[in-house]
């Protein structure tokens, strides 16, 4: 797989790594470079001779330098060298590369065996049930306390919230964390950002409080809900689903998955990467989340605009979106062809139908088109042939406008019920991701 220079730039952990990598992107710094179907490699002369290798199948990389940044400047330099020159010729992998690939395969095998063993391991059902019951009780107490807290807010009036310090929200969030309801804690923390955030903040605050109240109400009547919707409510509260359970029991779809786009947010010291994927045969949309602390790399490199031939296992939900990659067979650098697109009215009615199935749905990816961009309105709009328009979220989308040139395109984005966040578009028959937001 060959990466574009934009995709390589998107891999860099920070600007200084990318700049350092660019300096190493010329042949003078490299020796013994080569590539095969499985790997790309080279030796870079720095303060020592560093061996750099890239697994092209799973897109993983390794360098013998002591840098803690991943990918390091040597990996970036090798990728840039390969992408922009013909210096890296096809060759048989040397022993140090073959040994690394073999070790990776062995590690993957052992991991799979370990996971299988963990699943097969007899469970102490009694202890497990006891822990589960303790958690249920703790969560119920936390939810009840949250309900009282929300009632107090409404009794006193939202107008008074402008005078509340940040600690007011943080303390309630902390109580929920202590009650093992981390999902609710995150939502309470987000409420603090709404205060005085615009003229209509009381309406938005009330809407969020209302949805939170519906969630706690649903939790208290969980048995009355469908199992799939129960999973959603539990996820909102803060229960997580073990990734091994997802693989073992979740629904698995095989397809060629186009990575529509990506965003990375910092939540305290935790970085959360959201990847929106679209199954090119099934039309199924998926959200793959990855987490990393501090400067640690994410487990898998998912590059916007590439196509991953693999299997996704979906988390249980009334409207399954969240998934994890369980098998990755190949990766193509770009998508060329046609994307099935819907009109704006279909987008809105589709979202309404989705809300009917999962009322707490926050967003849904879609490909709309053909649409033209209207840059002279506030906010910008995507307009289809029927005269309907959808607001575009985020800052002015100048690069999108430059790529579209005012012509109709198929536009991929994430609809949140009020606006569409663009992820990419089909430009002259090729999918172009707009660029990950970090």
């Amino acid at each position, binding site marked *: 797989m060959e990466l574009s*220079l934009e995709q390589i730039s998107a891999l860099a952990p920070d600007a200084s790594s990318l700049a350092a990598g660019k300096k190493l992107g010329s042949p003078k710094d490299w020796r013994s470079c080569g590539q095969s179907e499985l790997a790309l490699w080279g030796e870079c002369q720095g303060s020592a001779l560093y061996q750099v290798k890239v697994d092209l199948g799973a897109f993983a990389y390794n360098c013998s330098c002591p840098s803690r940044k991943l990918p390091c400047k040597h990996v970036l330099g090798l990728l840039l060298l390969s992408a922009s020159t013909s210096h890296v010729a096809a060759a048989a992998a040397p022993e140090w590369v073959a040994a690394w690939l073999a070790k990776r395969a062995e590690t993957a095998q052992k991991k799979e065996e370990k996971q299988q063993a963990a699943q097969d391991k007899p469970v102490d059902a009694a202890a497990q049930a006891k822990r589960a019951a303790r958690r249920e009780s703790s969560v119920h107490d936390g939810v009840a306390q949250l309900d009282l807290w929300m*009632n107090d807010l*409404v009794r006193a009036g939202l107008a008074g919230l402008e005078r509340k310090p940040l600690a007011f929200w943080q303390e309630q969030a902390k109580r929920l964390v202590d009650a093992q309801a981390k999902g609710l804690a995150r939502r309470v923390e987000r409420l603090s950002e709404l205060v005085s955030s615009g003229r209509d903040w*009381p*309406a938005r605050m009330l*809407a969020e409080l209302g949805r939170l109240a519906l969630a706690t109400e649903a939790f208290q009547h969980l048995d009355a809900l469908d199992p799939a919707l129960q999973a959603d409510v539990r996820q909102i509260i803060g229960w997580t689903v073990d990734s091994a359970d997802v693989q073992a029991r979740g629904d698995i779809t095989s397809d060629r998955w186009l990575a529509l786009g990506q965003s990375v947010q910092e939540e305290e010291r935790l970085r959360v990467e959201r990847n929106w994927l679209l199954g090119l045969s099934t039309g199924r949309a998926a959200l793959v989340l990855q987490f990393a602390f501090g400067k640690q790399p994410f487990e898998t490199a998912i590059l916007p605009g590439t196509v991953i031939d693999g299997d996704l296992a979906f988390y249980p939900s009334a409207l399954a979106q969240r998934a994890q990659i369980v098998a990755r067979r190949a990766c193509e650098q770009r998508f060329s062809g046609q994307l099935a697109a819907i009109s704006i009215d279909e987008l809105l009615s589709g979202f309404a139908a989705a809300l009917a199935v999962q009322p707490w749905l926050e967003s849904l990816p879609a490909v709309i088109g053909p649409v033209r961009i209207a*840059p002279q309105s506030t906010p910008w709009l995507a307009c289809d042939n029927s005269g309907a328009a959808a607001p575009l979220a985020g800052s002015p989308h*100048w690069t999108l406008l430059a790529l579209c040139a005012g012509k109709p395109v198929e536009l991929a984005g994430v609809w949140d019920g009020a606006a569409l966040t663009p992820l990419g578009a089909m430009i002259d028959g090729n999918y172009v991701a707009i660029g990950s937001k970090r």
Partner: protein
Amino acid sequence: MQHLVEQAIVGTARLPTSQSADHPAIALVDRAAATAAERRLLLAAGVASIYETAGRLATTAPELPEPAAPQSQVECNSSAAALMDDLLGRAIVDQPLLVEACELLLEARQILPPALLFRALEIPNRKELRAAVRRVLGERGRWLAQFNDNWQWARHHAEVAETAEPPSAEAETVWQEGELPARAELLGKIRQQDAARARRWLADVWNTEKADARVALLAAFTAMPTADDIPLLELALKDRSAAVRSAATVALATIKDSPLSARMVERAGSMLAYQEPAKGGVGLALKRMVRGKASVGSLVVALPAELPQDWRLDGIEAKPPQGRGERAHWLVQVVSLVSPEHWNQRTSLSAAEVVEAASQTEHSAALIEAFANAALTFHATDWLTAVCDHGLAHVPAKREPGGIDWVNLLPRLLSAMPAADAEQRLARLLAGPATHAWDLPTLLQAIATPWSEAFGHNYLRWFWKLAKNVDVRSSEAQRAWSTLPQAALALPPACFAAALSEPPAALEESSHRYWLNELTKCQETLRLRKRLREAISGS
């Protein structure tokens, strides 16, 4: 939902919730059997918000702009685009590299790809930078620029028709509403197409413009004034701003046979006379022939006791700068405004001979400075080289009181003379014994870039010789290393291979690491320039 919001803002303690069941949300909540007013309000709000979201209708599309015209030129390839992306993101100190890259694109008839247009349009407000980038934006870039007021520089580059047709409505808009730099540039272009119209435009607004605007707009006429500009310039000569008067004075002096130039020639003649050489005997003539010296007379300087009023009215300032006598100051101002050719004709001497004669007078510094100013104003190449050679040969170790400021003058002279002449002089300097006495970076900055291949190799020979043989801690070495940033940008492609030689082994010592780092940075810039050429033009 609005009703619920109002209740929530005030608080249920102050305002009981209504029992209205006209919203589906309330009915649903009633079925949930919530009893507390707060809980009912919250649940109703939750349901209502979901209803509202689900029931959202599409906005109506506004009128859409016309799509961009097809690109008439080829977009650069991905390797070149990556390099351009890197340059667009660099600090302003790397501006010359970006300008060079744009010029390479232009030469190859290529333009920036759409993905880079936003960054290109957001570049800092530097005239040379914007001028270079503007030319490689293509139709798509100019189309994109219409949607952002900050990007009008990309469109308002005064596209005045090459014919004598009236300016377009867009040009009128720029003239009436644009910023001063755009207006000045526009006026300059109209001046080239229809000078009379340009004069009329300026005359119409002259009394309403501020002094700095008058100076900037007058520049359209002071660059290459003609006799038709005399009335406008004489109006400016009476301006209340000294800067405007000064600009007008210089412009009028350069117009052949203008009344002011004739007055200045007369005044200069009253202060500076030429005395023919004494007719010596045959012996003296033979001596001169043997020594190879021409018969050169002498210059006689006679300064007025007071500054005449008519001189003041023509822009001659009475008060001198610090360090110069006032009468010498009048001499400098007047002689600066006389074409140096006049002295060639008056004396039948070459420029070098006149300069040499001036150096023998008691007002040598004033006279030579005046000749330098005149050479610059009237673009007299032989005078530029003559004064420059005099400076390079005679510069004292320290500037004397009232002496010529060669540090600032030499670069101006080098910049103004043809590149080949300037390079020849610097090449002689580099080959000479005392390069450490000169501010080499400033002198090198003054010559046109890129350097010629010959000069590039001259420079490199000098540099590598110093790098290998001179103590890197010496001031001579420091001056040499300080030229590296300029060399990185000025060396021509034919010199890249010689410049990218391995550094001397001695630089690996830890005490020399600073110099090695400077050389490494220089070589990285050269490699980048090489990669740019390979990516853009394949050469």
